[in-house]
């Protein structure tokens, strides 16, 4: 028995360590991306053809494009395009998830039906179709990622609410709240601490992180498709570069003899870092 207890303690300690490591990594990456977004220049540097296609060693840290402009500026501008809308979308979904979980704790039956009905209506169409229709009607001078990110968050909300409601139901729903009230706890402590912070946290944070990641991927996909067709992107002003421009710049190195592999690697690394941040946030918020 003591052996089992010590094993369990050891597992909890290891789990706690992995959560801290994941949380630290996510924070570090988020700070780096945030700093990159804040330091993004308004316009790319003046072309310098002598440095065209320069690699990371010739023009640190990431090299240059076909006109000798630093890829670092592409990365910074791309971060500035996605930073705020993805965070807003993530927070929106988290708010919806908390609402779904709390509604399930406050009343049963009709709330679940309401959430499911909302999900059925909102989720009846492919998300990309709804996003493209929204993109279609945004005036050209008001183009930006935020309306598309909010649309995506709204479409993802029913799933998040449903999952949070399921967690609350497993917890006991209204009976759990009544039991804590019987202990003399106040509403802020019951809902804020016991329901949201201790029990809904893993689901809420994971859903928020996933939507943040999806919004970044959505921006890259929409911008790449537009850039590949020589058209302006729906998600940012023409003066800005997206991470999709790095992929577009690097893609020819796969099929032609163009020395832009460093741009492709940088683009993929940025995408990978976003996926890792989302994954790490999910791990960091896991239940003990």
């Amino acid at each position: 028995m003591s052996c089992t207890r010590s094993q369990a303690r050891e597992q909890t300690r290891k789990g706690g360590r992995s959560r801290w490591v994941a949380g630290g990594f996510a924070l570090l990456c988020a700070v780096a991306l945030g700093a990159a977004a804040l330091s993004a220049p308004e316009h790319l540097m003046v072309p310098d053809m002598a440095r065209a296609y320069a690699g990371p060693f010739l023009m640190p840290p990431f090299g240059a494009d076909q006109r000798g402009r630093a890829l670092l500026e592409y990365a910074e501008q791309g971060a500035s395009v996605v930073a705020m809308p993805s965070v807003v979308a993530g927070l929106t979904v988290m708010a919806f998830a908390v609402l779904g979980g709390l509604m399930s704790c406050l009343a049963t039956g009709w709330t679940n039906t309401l959430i499911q009905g909302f999900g059925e209506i909102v989720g009846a169409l492919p998300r990309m179709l709804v996003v493209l229709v929204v993109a279609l009607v945004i005036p050209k001078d008001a183009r930006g990622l935020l309306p598309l990110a909010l649309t995506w968050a709204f479409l993802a909300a029913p799933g998040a609410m449903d999952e949070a409601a399921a967690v609350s139901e497993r917890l006991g729903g209204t009976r759990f709240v009544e039991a804590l009230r019987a202990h003399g706890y106040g509403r802020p402590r019951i809902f804020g601490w016991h329901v949201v912070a201790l029990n809904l946290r893993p689901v809420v944070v994971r859903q928020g992180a996933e939507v943040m990641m999806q919004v970044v991927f959505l921006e890259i996909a929409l911008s790449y498709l537009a850039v590949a067709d020589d058209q302006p992107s729906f998600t940012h002003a023409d003066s800005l570069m997206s991470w999709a421009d790095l992929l577009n710049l690097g893609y020819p190195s796969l099929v032609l003899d163009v020395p832009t592999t460093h741009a492709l690697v940088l683009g993929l690394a940025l995408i990978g870092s976003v996926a890792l941040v989302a994954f790490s946030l999910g791990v960091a918020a896991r239940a003990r």
Partner: protein
Amino acid sequence: MRRWWLRPMVRLLAAVSLPILVPAIITALIWALPGDPASIICPPETCGGTAVLAARWNLDAGPVAFFWGWIQGAVHGDFGNSWRLEQGVPVAELLRTAVPHSLLLIALALVPVALGSVAAAQGWLTRAVDPILQVVGLVPALVLALVAAAAVELTYGAASFSGHAAMMRLLAGALVLGLADGALSGAITGTRAVFLTEDKQRYVGVAVLRGERRLPNTFPNVAPALAGQLRARVLHLLSGAVVVEAVLRIDGIGDLLWSGTLLQDFGVVLAAATGFALLSSGLLVVQAVVEIAVAWYVRWAPDLSLAPADLP
């Protein structure tokens, strides 16, 4: 159980209304944009005859007249003309080429998803593979589609769009759709979760003790949940098809929707979006039919609340 018909009826109602609602909303949005629709296609400062064009394309009588005219035409297979993408070309012609490609792409992409679901239901895949699946599922469709496009272009050339190359583009696109954005991992973990929850029910343990197989007992009860998951997966694939078709240059309805959106070709977007709405309606109908079939099957089962002597 008393109101078993409610959910399928809501789904059928949604299925009927979607193909009308989607073009209605897009029509309303066209008129909500600054400037009248005719001047969007043909700005008066750059091209003459805007009024003639508006009259020819039924854009001069307001949104309601345009919508009813469009719906009446669509019922007879006439979706109007392309405004910008291929100006003047009937959209029905574009759809005739695009829809079969998209349907084939989705059907092929469903193969790995369905195999994953079957393997999860049968318990052939252990949880040990979950981390690998999760990592693969994190890769966005765009990245995998670019890799697939590069592979096809290196093998067949950049301008290869017919014969074997076209089939390879479809197969590569289907593989990308089936793997990327968590399609396969979601199918496996989702199906497994449904069956694991059902396996905890007492009747399953009793059936196993009686020497019966687990799956035939649980399947009728999990069928509605599986149908719901299948609908969500196909919608997910349809969403991803827009990116995959555009990157791999597959002449499908997703590519058509993307090109129409990019060029603000409302004629094409209206028809392509309605095509997507029809596919979504079809999925809703399938789910409703499964739910009705299961409910009927359950109603045929003997009522266990009756005393043994009352049973036939």
